[in-house]
Each structure stands twice: as structure tokens, then as C-alpha cells.
């Protein structure tokens, strides 16, 4: 009897998980994926790509779309340059965050600001392939025809206040992140899609220099 219960629980869990992400099914054995994801990330020293960011405000049925360019360089340097529909530059480097908006430029310590610290860690963990090793998150992996979906669920309350889940879409071709989706507790989400990716191109240090 108990065996039947476990089978039913497993069956319904799988159905719910699949319904959650249409086209994806839960990967019960993630060791092969983890190994390939980690190996690919170890070989990736830099990423250069375009990005499209969608902020979906569910209750307002509104979407704010912005576009720009993205650069990542190991170990932990990130540059995001928004150019549509507004200009905005963010550089994460050596524990500092540099921001230039329409009016001002500002440098803050990534550790002194909780929000920037989280953004810093999430983006870098996604690019380095270390997101699944972060003790602040539990993870599940789902497999689709073209990609994997890594669902990260925050453990500490400080993170739960910001995110319900963070989902990373990993391209099956090269095991690099092709999208990061941040789902908020209220139902809103932000998705960053990466396109025209160039892996391991030479990126000048000046891109990440914070004056």
C-alpha cells in the first residue's frame, strides 16, 4: 500500500513539475548534467552577447522591454550596457558595482548593498556554472528538447523576499546560459535572454575598469 502511495506521489510530482514548465520534464538523475555544465563553464573564460530584458508586471498586464550588450570575464567581472529604450551601464568588478545612469555615475561596494550583492552573485554564478553549488539555493533540473532548465529556490528569508525562483535556461549545444528568469513572490518576473553569444573571445580589461 505504502509503495503505491510513493509511486502516486512521484507520478503527481512529475506531472506538476512538467505542467509548471511546458515542454520540460524533471531530470531525476542530475549528475551527468552537472558534470557537463561544470566542464563547459570551466572552459568558458569570457562571454560576449546581446541581451533582451523583459520585466513582466503580471497584475498590470504590462511588459517593459529593454535591450543592450553583455560581457562576462572570469572570474567575476560583468558589464551590462543597456541602450534601448534608455542608456544605463552597470559594471561588477572586484566586489564593486559601478553604475552610470542618465544623470550620474556612482560606485558602491557590492557587499554593502544587499540587492547588488544578490545580483552580483546570481549573474556570476550563472555564468560560472556554479549556481547549483550555492548553499543559498536548492535546485531542480528539467530537460527540454533544446535546453535544460535549472530551477533555483532560495533558502534564506533574505533571498525569499526577493525571489520565488531563479530559472536558468542552459543551451544543450554548449551548456551556456541562454536565459535567466527571476520570479518574484508577487507573480512578477524579469527574464534576460542572451543572443549572439561569443564564447572565449578576447575582452579588454578596460571594459571592466571602474574608475
Amino acid at each position: 500500500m505504502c509503495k503505491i502511495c510513493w509511486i502516486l506521489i512521484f507520478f503527481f510530482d512529475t506531472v506538476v513539475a512538467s505542467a509548471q514548465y511546458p515542454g520540460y520534464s524533471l531530470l531525476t538523475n542530475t549528475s551527468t548534467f552537472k558534470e557537463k555544465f561544470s566542464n563547459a563553464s570551466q572552459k568558458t573564460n569570457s562571454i560576449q552577447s546581446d541581451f533582451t530584458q523583459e520585466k513582466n508586471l503580471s497584475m498590470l498586464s504590462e511588459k517593459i522591454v529593454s535591450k543592450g550588450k553583455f560581457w562576462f570575464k572570469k572570474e567575476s567581472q560583468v558589464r551590462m550596457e543597456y541602450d534601448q529604450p534608455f542608456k544605463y551601464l552597470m559594471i561588477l568588478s572586484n566586489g564593486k558595482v559601478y553604475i552610470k545612469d542618465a544623470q550620474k555615475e556612482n560606485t558602491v561596494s557590492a557587499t554593502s548593498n544587499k540587492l547588488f550583492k544578490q545580483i552580483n552573485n546570481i549573474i556570476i554564478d550563472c555564468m560560472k556554472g556554479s549556481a547549483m553549488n550555492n548553499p543559498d539555493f536548492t535546485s531542480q533540473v528539467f530537460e527540454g528538447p533544446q535546453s535544460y532548465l535549472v530551477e533555483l529556490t532560495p533558502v534564506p528569508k533574505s533571498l525569499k523576499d526577493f525571489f520565488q525562483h531563479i530559472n536558468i535556461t542552459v543551451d544543450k549545444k554548449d551548456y551556456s546560459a541562454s536565459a535567466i528568469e527571476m520570479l518574484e513572490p508577487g507573480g512578477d518576473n524579469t527574464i534576460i535572454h542572451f543572443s549572439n553569444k561569443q564564447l572565449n573571445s578576447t575582452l579588454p580589461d578596460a571594459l571592466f575598469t571602474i574608475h
Partner: protein
Amino acid sequence: MRYLLFISFIVLCSCSSEYRKMRKVSGDIGCIQKFKPVFQGTTYRTTVDVIGKHLSGLVLIKVMPDSSTRVVFTSEIGFKFFDFGFSRDSGFKVYYIIQQMDKQAVTTTLRKDFELIMMYHTPAKGSFILKDVEKYYYGFPQEKGYNFYITDSSCSQLIGMQRSSKRKAVVEAIMLGADKNIPDTIGITHKNFNFTIGLKRIEKK
């Protein structure tokens, strides 16, 4: 004694109302309704400067099907700072606010600022018109003080807005492009402490 008189004069001058020199006139109090903004999912590039701190992001203002208005402020990278709802029936509601901003003084100040911009408490009982040389001040009593909408003599142009105590303006605001009902630029400046909000409309493509 001479100094005491001089100081008393200065104190009296600083206490007198800046609206006292204006005179009450009759007119069409409803003429300012044509400047009332209509926000149908309008997004603004936004900067906030408060006591030496600078914040930027996007503000989305939308009138909902139930005729309430939602004001959502997010960072450029998508993190939400606050989500407020303004409704004539159910009042003001905080749907979300980040912990760092979750203080009564902050939400009250922002509520009053956006209510001024949205011309929320107009029309209102006890409203009146003041004339100051070439400008007309359309006054609407609030819980404390007044909201003023300042126009030219023919009420064809909205020159500015003020949130005031009984004596003087505590907040000044401008709204450019109000004649088209969707403002292009909104500026809010607090007079009694260093706090400014600037909004510049982002065109939808």
C-alpha cells in the same frame, strides 16, 4: 531694542503666508480638469535624489479596469522598489515596497506627491481660486494644507503645481505636455528637505 524690533519684523515676515498677497476671485474651478493626466501604461525614466542619495529606474503608471491607478517603480535591471495603488473607492494601497523604503513617512510623502501629479483630490469641497498678477492658483483643501494648480490667465496652460501648508509651498511640481493628457516630463521638488523626483516619458515602440 532696535535689534529686537528688527528680529520681530523678520520673524513676522517669515511667518506670513505667501498666498496672503493674492486675492480670491471667482471663475471656473473645473477648467483645470483638462490638464488631468491619463496614464494608460505609461513608462517613465526616473531619477530620485534624496538627502545626497541617488536612485534611478523606471516608473510605470497605469489606470486599471476598476479605474484605480497603479504606480510601480523598478530598477533598470528589473527589481521592484514599490507598487502603489490609488483608488477613489478603496483609497491608497501599498501592494509592495522594499524593506529599506518601508517607512510610514516615505509612503505618505510619495502618496501625496503622486496624488498632486494625478490631480487626485480635484474637484473637492471648499476649492477656490486665487489671482497673483498674471497667474491663477486653483486651490483644493487636503487633510493638511492645500494642493494648488497654477495656470495662466486664460487657463490654457498649466504652469505648475504646489502642495502647500497654510502658509507656503512645501512641494513644487511641473508637468510638461499636460495639454496632451500624457505628460512628457514630470518634476517634483520638496522645499523643506532635499528630495527631488524626475520622470521623463519613454516612448513605446
